[in-house]
């Protein structure tokens, strides 16, 4: 017994180094071969009818910039979004919302989003005295349209998909309303359509989220929230176009994304948002 243990220990000690020496290159080599094979053999995702006629999704790469230094927290964007997309006028079910993030002298960050910000913040007092406020910003929130999106990965029926232009959409006819994506989204950007709500297809129980107003952008227009913003705090454009406003901002100015540590690579970027408030 003792002999066996000794032998095993002896072998494993020696073979550990050996195995490491062999398996690491194998790991990399095997992976590289696999990658090459999949690249060679993989067929492009079968394309079905274009989502919108005369719209070439592959020609665009949509990006969004929220200028927190300009946002006044009026809530016009939330109202416009809900009106445009038939989203219920409440806090729980919303595609976009405004969060006021306030850093207090005690170091705590207070986040408020009364009624998703529909009526603004004029009637939403801060629970701290004005003298305790170190910094405060309105942070408009929406689906981040992540490049590596947890929601599409967890969907058991493939109802959530990504279009060639980068927008994540939900196929209401496929969605079974399990809610996995709602839970998986680290940004809380999804909700299940409640009964009685007016949806694009009239289906309650399916997952819904910001689509960058896909029906508008595919017709060459701006999302409703961008159109209505009175201070130009929401900017939308094509990152494939180097002269678009969003491209210029991302090139010339310091922006950040929310929760970059998750590696989701959001397509919504924030301007003027300091780390201490993010």
């Amino acid at each position: 017994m003792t002999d066996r243990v000794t032998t095993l220990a002896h072998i494993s000690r020696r073979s550990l180094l050996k195995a490491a020496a062999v398996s690491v290159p194998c790991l990399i080599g095997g992976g590289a071969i696999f990658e090459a094979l999949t690249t060679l053999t993989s067929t492009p995702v079968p394309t079905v009818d274009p989502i919108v006629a005369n719209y070439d999704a592959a020609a665009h790469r949509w990006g969004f910039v929220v200028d927190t230094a300009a946002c006044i927290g009026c809530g016009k964007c939330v109202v416009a979004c809900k009106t445009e997309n038939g989203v219920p006028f409440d806090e729980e079910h919303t595609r976009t919302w405004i969060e006021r993030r306030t850093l207090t002298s005690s170091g705590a960050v207070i986040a408020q989003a009364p009624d998703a910000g529909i009526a603004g913040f004029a009637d939403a007092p801060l629970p701290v005295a004005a003298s305790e406020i170190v910094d405060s910003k309105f942070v408009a929130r929406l689906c981040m349209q992540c490049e590596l999106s947890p929601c599409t990965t967890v969907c058991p029926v493939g109802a959530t998909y990504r279009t060639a232009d980068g927008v994540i959409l939900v196929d209401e006819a496929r969605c079974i309303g399990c809610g996995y994506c709602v839970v998986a989204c680290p940004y809380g950007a999804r909700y299940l359509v409640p009964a009685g709500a007016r949806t694009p297809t009239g289906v309650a129980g399916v997952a819904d989220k910001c689509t960058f107003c896909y029906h508008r952008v595919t017709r060459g227009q701006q999302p409703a929230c961008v159109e209505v913003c009175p201070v130009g705090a929401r900017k939308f454009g094509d990152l494939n176009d180097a002269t678009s406003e969003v491209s210029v901002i991302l090139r010339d100015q310091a922006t950040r994304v929310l929760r970059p540590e998750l590696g989701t690579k959001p397509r919504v970027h924030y301007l003027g948002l300091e780390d201490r408030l993010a």
Partner: protein
Amino acid sequence: MTVVATVLGAGAFAASSFYDQYGTPRTPVSVRSWQLRPETYATSDCRGCHGEAAAATNGLAHARLLCEACHVPSVDHPGPVAGVVQMLPAPNESDCVTCHASLPGRPAGFAQVAVDAHYAGAECLSCHDPHTSTATKPPEVTHPLAHLPTCATCHAPLGLKSYPVNHDPAPDNVCLSCHRLGAGVGVGSQ
């Protein structure tokens, strides 16, 4: 062992390359729904017809605003009704303070007022025109108004239309002992 390591390595790479590669064929219902979705905002050229309101904003801060930021979405435009084009809703007090109340979090450079201190008790729209946004209406204010705030709201030392220096701040009944509502200028007995 090497075989196991190779398989695991390949698996790890497979997982990373498969991650988020889903692009499922869309169902016809979903495809059609995007094509049929109506738009509600910025669907028409408001300023084309409403030239007077548009001209009022010329060169001013509100010129850049989408009319629908305060008015109804253009798709809900009531249209000509018996020869009258209506635009809803009527200007509302909350339309102003939603954007212009002084709040923590608002950019310092943005025009905002402390609502409780700025002519407290007076309606925004009794002085301000919502299109020009400047306080251009005091001359049109007719006294009496049913909802008239106290005299000192407007006729204070730093007010819109200040009273002469020989006046002291006084309650309304003192003012009204000399001034008549509706006459504006002092026509009192003194």
